[in-house]
């Protein structure tokens, strides 16, 4: 069964460093999303992406964040200068028709 994959599973970085989180959505899906979940809190929407452009972004998704679909398979989230409060689990999701399917997540730890 097709699934969303994410790498790495865990990323540790120093405050101020850039990180790139990678996702491979389900191959025939057209809509892509990033969400995050701070430990013990609810899952929050970050950004949606369709037809090679951002369709919506949340207040969390400020100028430090960017997304890209560099080729036909990968979907990346970049954080330019990480802050302590960026520590969270980051989930990629993709959608074909209605259901959104999530990847296993990348746990980002900012020290």
């Amino acid at each position, binding site marked *: 069964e097709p699934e969303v994959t994410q790498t790495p599973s865990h990323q540790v970085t120093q405050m101020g460093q850039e990180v790139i989180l990678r996702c491979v959505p389900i191959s025939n899906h057209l*809509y892509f999303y990033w969400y995050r979940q701070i430990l013990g809190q*609810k*899952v929050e929407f970050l950004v*949606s992406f369709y037809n090679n452009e951002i369709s*919506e972004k949340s207040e969390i998704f400020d100028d430090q964040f960017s997304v890209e679909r560099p080729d036909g398979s990968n979907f990346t989230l970049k954080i330019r200068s990480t802050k302590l409060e960026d520590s969270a689990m980051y989930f990629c*999701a993709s*959608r074909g028709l*209605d259901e*959104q399917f*999530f990847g296993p997540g990348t746990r980002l730890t900012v020290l």
Partner: protein
Amino acid sequence: SQQGEEDPQALSIQEGENATMNCSYKTSINNLQWYRQNSGRGLVHLILIRSNEREKHSGRLRVTLDTSKKSSSLLITASRAADTASYFCATVLSFISNFGNEKLTFGTGTRLTIIP
């Protein structure tokens, strides 16, 4: 006010019993989806119910939707130890308000523990 809130926040039952979790939301929706999350892991899609549906079944899962009360329930029958997880409802707002984006708004979750 939050779009999705589940209750109870935590539920412990004996294996074999049925577990019911509820979700309430505030604004009109296009659909509502339930997810399971094992501790520290990813979100597993369980079931989707559309705004024009009242009930759906999938294996041991039964989901109901009452749009007049803006609420949904997830019933897991004949629970097993492996059902221990957190369960989240997530709503997609009606197309009028989301321009077809269909981002998910998650609730706070119910932590379900099945006691063997």
